[in-house]
């Protein structure tokens, strides 16, 4: 059957076929590329962005805070760089954050590196909500460990909120912030622990230890933060994986048998190219992946590729955050050091007396630089315009600390990613559109976390406390839009990441999360990617059965 796509394929440039094509060079794409490299298959990864240069990162310049709000802003709409595609998040109280380039979101993340908890994989069985995952903590545990070694994780063994985990190197410094909040948590009798962090506290694997630049969120010039451009990709490239940058995939092509045959992409010269492949692996995050799948609609797959369940783009989970900050009479850590130092899992597991299901974690965070002190101070009404500005600023600067709660976001089909009917990126590919709202359960959870957060801040001796819930510019965690499961009617990929509908199409990013947990997802995204790569290798002779 000839289609319009077949005609376009004739007009697009055609590359030599490859065995494995990976779309996206971020957290999961790097991990799966590295793991599959040992097969000696011909592997190509297409990345719409480029390599970053550590010497360009904001912390290398005097204007470090300003640049983190410009070319290094977390919002793709604010950055608007050639690598970015627009995301219409007008219909969401939480705005989307990402980074498009080699390393993906790991270039900008805080490297706070918690794992999901065992209960997170069994929410239906334990709490009667959402669905259980088709994998469990025990299955992923060896891949969490492998990923920790690859990324370089600092931690302290013995956290009673988790099954036993090994520590590779000492935790990041406690600082005045960690000590102040740790003392307060002890007073309240609540759990706290130094964060697992993908930040080196010792020289490791050719990378230098952290020197407390405090700018993890806009790229680590020291290279101490475990971003995949300095971890997995260095090894994958040495193993002959090919990484092509400035190549933006528009859609995946299929044949009469319903198998993926390759992808169309635009290269750096805006030339459309077809890349044939035996296996296609998507690693484009919880928005980029459904965007491409929906844009791959064809006569064979009129509702989008791999979408017989109708769930591609649905069940978007973003982790609503609440932020609570206070000010202290004594000087705190300020802008120095990894922004997040400790965590608490006190309110993580379901307790029905709290009137919400599931729970949240806290990240305790150090202070902020002078620019953000002034901006947030004026926004919060703590720093006036006019004569009183300078004295008020000096009362806040270097004297603040606080926390955010990360609330488990239960999946709801109405929270979704679709294609924007108006906006396009620079290649004419439709933008992603987000429709997202907070559930009543989430609102109760946010309220609870704000109340307990204020209690903690008061116990720590803070005054002039401010709160924000939900935190608007905090849509870093993009999950659930191509969920995994054993039932093709209720999931997009199976229990080892293969599309139910297209048997040589795999998804390895946060899209496949069944539930979100209440912690940052990167370590789980990467553990899943390594697990799926392992499944591909072990099933290689029956992969498409």
């Amino acid at each position, binding site marked *: 059957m000839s289609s319009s796509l077949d005609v376009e394929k004739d007009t697009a440039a055609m590359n030599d076929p490859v065995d494995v094509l990976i779309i996206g060079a971020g957290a999961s794409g790097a991990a799966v590329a590295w793991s599959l490299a040992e097969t000696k298959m011909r592997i190509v990864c297409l990345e719409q962005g480029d390599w970053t240069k550590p010497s360009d990162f904001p912390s290398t310049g005097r204007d470090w805070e300003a640049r983190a709000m410009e070319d290094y802003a977390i919002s793709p709409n604010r950055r608007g760089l050639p690598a970015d595609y627009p995301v219409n998040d007008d219909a969401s109280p939480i705005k989307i954050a990402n980074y498009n380039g080699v390393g993906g979101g790991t270039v900008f993340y805080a490297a706070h590196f918690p794992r999901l908890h065992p209960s997170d994989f069994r929410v239906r069985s334990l709490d009667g909500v959402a669905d259980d995952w088709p994998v469990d903590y025990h299955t992923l545990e060896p891949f969490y460990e492998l990923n920790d070694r690859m990324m370089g994780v600092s931690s302290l063994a013995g956290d009673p909120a988790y099954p036993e985990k090994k520590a590779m190197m000492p935790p990041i410094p406690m600082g005045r912030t960690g000590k102040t909040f740790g003392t307060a948590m002890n007073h309240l009798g609540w759990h706290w*622990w130094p964060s697992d962090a993908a930040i080196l506290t010792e020289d490791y694997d050719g990378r230098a230890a952290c020197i407390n630049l405090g700018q993890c969120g806009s790229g680590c010039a020291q290279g101490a933060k475990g971003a995949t451009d300095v971890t997995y990709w260095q090894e994958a490239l040495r193993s002959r994986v090919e990484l092509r940058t400035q190549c933006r995939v528009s859609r995946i092509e299929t044949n009469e048998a319903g198998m993926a045959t390759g992808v169309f992409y635009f290269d750096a010269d805006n030339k459309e190219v077809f890349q044939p492949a035996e296996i296609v692996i998507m690693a484009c995050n919880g928005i980029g992946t459904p965007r491409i799948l929906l844009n791959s609609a064809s006569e064979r797959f009129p509702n989008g590729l791999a979408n017989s369940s109708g769930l591609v783009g649905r069940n978007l989970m973003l982790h609503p955050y609440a932020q609570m900050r206070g000010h202290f009479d004594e000087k705190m850590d300020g802008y120095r050091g990894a922004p997040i130092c400790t965590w608490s899992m006190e309110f993580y597991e379901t307790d029905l007396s709290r009137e919400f299901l599931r729970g949240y974690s806290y990240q305790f965070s150090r202070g902020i630089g002078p620019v953000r002190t002034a901006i947030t101070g004026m926004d919060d009404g703590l720093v006036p315009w006019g004569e009183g500005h300078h004295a008020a600023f000096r009362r806040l600067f270097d004297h603040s600390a606080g926390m955010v709660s990360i609330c488990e976001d239960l999946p709801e089909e109405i929270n979704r990613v679709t294609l924007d009917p108006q906006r396009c990126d620079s290649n004419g590919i439709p933008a992603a559109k987000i429709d997202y709202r907070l559930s009543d359960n989430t609102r109760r959870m946010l309220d609870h976390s704000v109340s307990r957060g204020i209690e903690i801040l008061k116990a720590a001796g803070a005054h002039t406390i401010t709160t924000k819930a939900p935190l608007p510019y905090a849509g870093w965690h993009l999950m659930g839009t191509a969920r995994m499961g054993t039932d093709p009617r209720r999931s997009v990929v199976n229990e080892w990441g293969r599309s139910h509908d297209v048997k040589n199409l795999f998804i390895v990013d946060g899209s496949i999360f069944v539930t979100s947990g209440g912690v940052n997802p990167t370590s789980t995204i990467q553990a899943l990617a390594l697990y799926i790569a392992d499944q591909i290798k072990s099933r290689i002779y029956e992969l498409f059965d």
Partner: protein
Amino acid sequence: MTKSKDRTSDELSHSERKTLRCVVGHMIPLSLEFGVPGADDPDIFADILRSIDRDRDAIGEALRMIDTLAHGRLIDLPRTEQARCLLDFRNEHKTLAGVLEAAAARCYYRDDRVMASINMEARPPFPKGYLVEQGDWSLLDPVRARGRIFRDAN
């Protein structure tokens, strides 16, 4: 990284620049007490003008709002009237006021004179970095003593 090609590079008009300078001077004024310039200092204001590319449209809208509230031009009002007008603006247009605050703060709080006055070294974080207290993890003894808190999922 290079900036997006399609972003506007239009500069503010002469009139808009005068209004903006007046606004940021009210926002962060010169202080003899703390020995710091105002945000309308020539060097700092020039830095602001160079740095508002992404906010050009929002700043233009804010300045038009302010002049509308001033029933003419803000700069033509007496200083006390200017302050009253800007208070009205902040109360009625919080988001736009936030854009102006961010534009001013981004440049003001990187000026060497201001850095010195808040005891910050005039240097980037890299390559020297900073010291952070290591702390004593025996502070965790009560947490250890309480024991396991995660649920068994088997």
